């Protein structure tokens, strides 16, 4: 469904991504793990067009989307829940969700999507008129996910959705991800919490300083001594 082919990304003079290639098959959860600053966020941002790679290509459903504007890519059914949630803090929850469906012109469809999101996250319905900025970290994370779901993406990129959340919420978030996937959304998940990520994923990639150093079946990676040592705390 998604194919990244040998991308190189620079921030000014900094060579952040030094040739990353990966594939996300339809209907799967693929996870990208790696240390801080390895280039995970950069990879996701490149996929959805927020950053242009210097060389290399990104294909979504066999079409080249390299250099296509983000809003066009989103239109084709690919959305990201960005690192740090980036909700619209000074708007109420319902407006955040409406913006998630910005490209959907059909009012009825939008209303239905909103129903679904509220059903999945009842907390959001309770607080739908509250300003998003005043929500707790976990609630903000739910909102960010709900907002992304409003556009009914076929491929969802998630960037560290568990960051800063309490253990109980981390579990909840992961079960939501799994559920989403079971309902047909393909997912590319970036996580620090490698153990959790690998345990729900089908496939995993390990990124180090801008390169893929390991790739394979998630279960295998979970058992691999290198991964264990570097990312699972021995």
């Amino acid at each position, binding site marked *: 469904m998604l194919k990244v082919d040998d991308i190189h990304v620079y921030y000014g003079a900094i060579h952040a991504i030094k040739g990353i290639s990966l594939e996300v098959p339809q209907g799967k959860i693929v996870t990208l793990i790696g*240390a801080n*600053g390895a280039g995970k966020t950069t990879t996701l941002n490149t996929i959805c067009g927020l950053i242009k790679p210097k060389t290399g290509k990104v294909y979504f459903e066999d079409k080249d989307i390299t250099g296509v504007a983000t809003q066009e890519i989103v239109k084709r059914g690919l959305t990201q829940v960005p690192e740090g949630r980036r909700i619209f803090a000074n708007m109420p929850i319902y407006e955040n969700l409406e913006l998630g469906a910005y490209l959907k012109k059909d009012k009825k469809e939008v209303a239905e999507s909103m129903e679904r999101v509220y059903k999945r996250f009842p907390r959001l319905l309770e607080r739908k008129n509250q300003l998003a900025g005043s929500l707790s*970290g976990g609630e903000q994370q739910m909102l960010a996910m709900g907002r992304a779901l409003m556009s009914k993406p076929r491929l969802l990129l998630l960037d560290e959705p568990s960051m*800063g959340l309490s*253990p*109980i919420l981390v579990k909840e978030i992961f079960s939501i991800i799994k559920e989403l996937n079971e309902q047909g959304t393909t997912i590319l998940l970036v996580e620090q919490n*490698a153990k959790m990520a690998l345990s729900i994923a089908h496939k995993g990639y390990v990124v180090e300083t801008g390169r893929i150093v390991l790739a394979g079946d998630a279960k295998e990676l979970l058992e691999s001594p290198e991964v264990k040592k570097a*990312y699972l705390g021995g």
Partner: protein
Amino acid sequence: MALLSVNNLSISFGGLKAVSDLNLSLEQGDLAGLIGPNGAGKTTAFNMLTGVYLPTSGDILLDGKSLVGLKPYQINHRGVARTFQNIRLFSDLTVIDNLKIAYHSHAKYGLLGAIARLPGFYSGEKEMHDKSMELLKIFKLDNKAEELAKNLPYGEQRRLEIARAMATQPRVLLLDEPAAGMNPQETHDLMELIRWIRHEFGLTILLIEHDMSLVMGVCEKIYVLDYGQIIAVGTPDDIRNNPRVIEAYLGEEAS
């Protein structure tokens, strides 16, 4: 007598009671944890301890003297330093300048000395530089001294924030989610570091963290906050098995 004692501390924002009747007591050399669900009021408690928010009621005593009503910098001068949940480095400055700024209140020369470049200025600057380098060595950042803070990887930025807090020469160190965004390996190294500085500098440390491996690994005493109230205090083992904590925070099959 406890070094830091917090008595019935409360604060509300509008109608919301973010922290109510919080009681804490830390002895010299304690290493304690403060955990709780998102939005429980942990960071808010830190903000009151460091003078960022003025408590609605209650008292904070350091060595028996109240800190309530003091400005953040005055509280820092009394010996309380902190890090932030969202990293707040002086990001366009070099690593070493970040530390030198924190040394400011211990500078050995005045305004005139600086402007007229009196001899005291040079010795004072040298002392600050040397002390900063020493700290950087401890935090394994000495090879990045001239790097801009914003160019450091995330994990190193977190370490730099702790180093910077140390440079103010505190007696009490408050760490707000020091391991956030770190992988298990980095978290492990951080644990070692925290233990080591507590020992080496005789510090009293209170830390907020959601990573249970860190909290359970280093803290001797843990406070659990939920909806602004302490729901449990105890050793890691007590906490791990406390049903209220499991229900509110850890979830089933606590790790």
